[in-house]
């Protein structure tokens, strides 16, 4: 705001949709901080959680964050993203807790069916273990309702029972901006301050705030294989099969999750503005374009969420 040429009185000024979304998210973050005893903010180094960090700065500076950052590392993350994660947390001077799936596997909490399997579905176990280990009563996440059908109905303060489970049929009604944050020991909340943002809003905000994001969100040349209409990025985890051809294509990532199942899209956008423009005309949802695991069943996200997924 305040970009208008003529000074208007404050009641005449129209806030942009980003201003309104930002104000709502700051309000939510503060409600968590001042009502919950021991919250954490899930930070992956991805664009949505990068936006969350900026919103937390807006909510709490000049104070430090009233919660630590928590990352559940699948061990399948892009190295650029992990490096970015560590650097960003250090720049902000905030505490970062990392818990890894590899630890959970070593302790026998997770048993993979085969070593190169996509690890997204198993994150819930490591996350719930971390919630228990630290006694978190609220985990702030960057999920958005526009991502997926099952999310469209989720509350901003979303209750999890003592098994970490979400019951879509038994959610607390949420009215006005009055959030019921009460939990009993062992139960916790997932809180989604950017529920009402779309992918387009996220990029507009990143551009407006000039937020640094991992370089792989911008167009770069990468070796990929065409699989089921998507571009699978070649890595030590994803290797071409006999009949597949490796191509070098200019791509960028729209999400930066598990390397075995996150696909980039063809793109030459390498400024914020170009990404905003591409997102504005984009015809495929973020998950549809980039997640191999969500395509298997229309309801796969809902099933995972019930088990304690983000």
């Amino acid at each position, binding site marked *: 705001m305040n970009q208008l040429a003529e000074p208007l009185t404050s009641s005449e000024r129209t806030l942009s*949709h980003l201003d*309104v979304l930002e104000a709502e998210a700051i*309000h939510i973050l503060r409600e968590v901080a001042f009502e919950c005893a021991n919250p954490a903010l899930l930070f992956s180094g991805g664009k949505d959680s990068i936006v969350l960090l900026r919103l937390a700065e807006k909510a709490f500076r000049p104070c430090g964050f009233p919660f630590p950052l928590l990352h559940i590392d699948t061990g399948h993350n892009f190295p650029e993203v992990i490096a970015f994660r560590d650097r960003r947390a250090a720049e902000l001077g905030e505490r970062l807790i990392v818990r890894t799936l590899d630890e959970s596997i070593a302790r026998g909490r997770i048993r993979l069916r085969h070593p190169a399997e996509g690890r997204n579905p198993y994150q819930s176990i490591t996350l719930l273990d971390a919630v228990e280990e630290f006694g978190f009563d609220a985990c702030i996440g960057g999920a958005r309702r526009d991502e997926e059908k099952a999310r469209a109905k989720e509350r901003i303060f979303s209750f999890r029972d003592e098994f970490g489970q979400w019951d879509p049929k038994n959610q607390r009604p949420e009215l006005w901006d009055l959030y019921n944050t009460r939990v009993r020991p062992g139960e916790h909340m997932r809180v989604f301050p950017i529920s009402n943002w779309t992918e387009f809003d996220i990029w507009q905000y990143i551009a407006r705030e000039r937020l640094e994001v991992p370089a792989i969100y911008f167009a770069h040349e990468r070796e990929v294989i065409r699989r089921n209409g998507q571009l699978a990025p070649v890595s030590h985890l994803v290797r071409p099969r006999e009949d597949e051809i490796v191509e070098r294509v200019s791509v960028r990532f729209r999400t930066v999750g598990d390397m075995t199942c996150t696909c980039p899209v063809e793109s030459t956008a390498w400024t914020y503005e170009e990404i905003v423009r591409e997102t504005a005309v984009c015809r495929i949802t973020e998950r549809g374009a980039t997640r191999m695991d969500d395509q298997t069943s229309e309801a796969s996200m809902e099933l995972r969420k019930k088990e304690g997924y983000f």
Partner: protein
Amino acid sequence: MGAAESFVSREVGLLRFITAGSVDDGKSTLIGRLLFDSKGIFEDQLTAIERASTRRGRAEADLSLLTDGLQAEREQGITIDVAYRYFSTPRRKFIIADSPGHEQYTRNMVTAASTAQVAVILLDARNGILTQTRRHTYIASLLGVRHVVFAVNKMDLVDYAQAAFLALREELAAFASKAGIAHAWYVPLSALHGDNVVEPGSRMPWHEGPTLLQLLEHIDAQHDLAVLPFRFPVQGVLRPTGADIDRRWLDFRGYAGRIESGTVAVGDRVSVLPSGATTSIRAIHTLDGDLPDATAPQSVTLLLADPVDVSRGDLIVRTSETPALSAGLSATVCWLDETALDPRRKYLLKHGTRTVKVLVEQIEHRVDIHSLESTPADGTLAANDIGRIRLKLHKPLAFDAYRANRATGSFILIDETTNDTVAAGLIDHG
């Protein structure tokens, strides 16, 4: 940069609206149409509904399937809760809260309407005003939705006849003013064929008003909030601590919150409630620098001129516009929980950022949602009931009547033993 830059910074504003209608009035089709015609539907979503439509033996994509939600509901063929949809046009971003019509209806619509600025109420042109229409309009009015758009759907089934629309419109206008709707609008449309949804189409040349989308793009609802008295519920105190803090912030003591209504400027005389201490605004702090003034619904941090006692749960207001203060409240509540109101139970009332213990002293009456008449409550309210109750609070509360101010006139009740949110409350008076 040029064009791309303007894309990023263009001011479009945000509008939240709800859609309401009886089953089969065409609500799902209308939402699907709005999303589809404004390109808010993605190709992969369309592919998914085309697949589902073919499975169900339909030739073209059934747009109503877009608004279907969770698996359990798909199995039952109904939706059971409030779902949120997003789309934007170059002018505005829209959030639709869609509450389905069936037995949980009152509670879902009340929930959806609580944050809506506009209600789109659907009617079937052949059926005219039904009990449902009255109920929807009543709930919209009760929840303080100031703009109601009556969308007269299925005009194709009455041969796009102007007379049919005008007759209905007249009836609706009389009824809307009786229901206390501040601004009512009327659009004849066909959700199925798209007439007057986004584009006017050619079949109703007699309609000179805007299409539904044009209307939604132009209704000005943000200023409704800015012209109200200044209300700032304090969420918490920001005080930097630790050995290594920047000397600049050594004496910083800020009150974090959101301006729920009105505007505030540096120098304004303010009161802190319920204590009543007065001081003035020294600074309005944000990460992007201090502001000379700020407006609802911005989240800011206020610095005060004097060291008055302020903590979470307090309400900061302009000294010349103080709200009421009372430990007794008369309120209209919508009961949300499956377990009925029991006056012997302990409830917590959350109002703004303050939570207090309450006792239900009296249940005055219940509103029959079909006839909209008051009926005896028989000592309780069950899920989906709307009624008037008298509450006794453990501590006094600073509030406004809901019809004057949504933010400081609303509360929720929480059952202290189950932690469930059991009721939505609208304050009538102290």
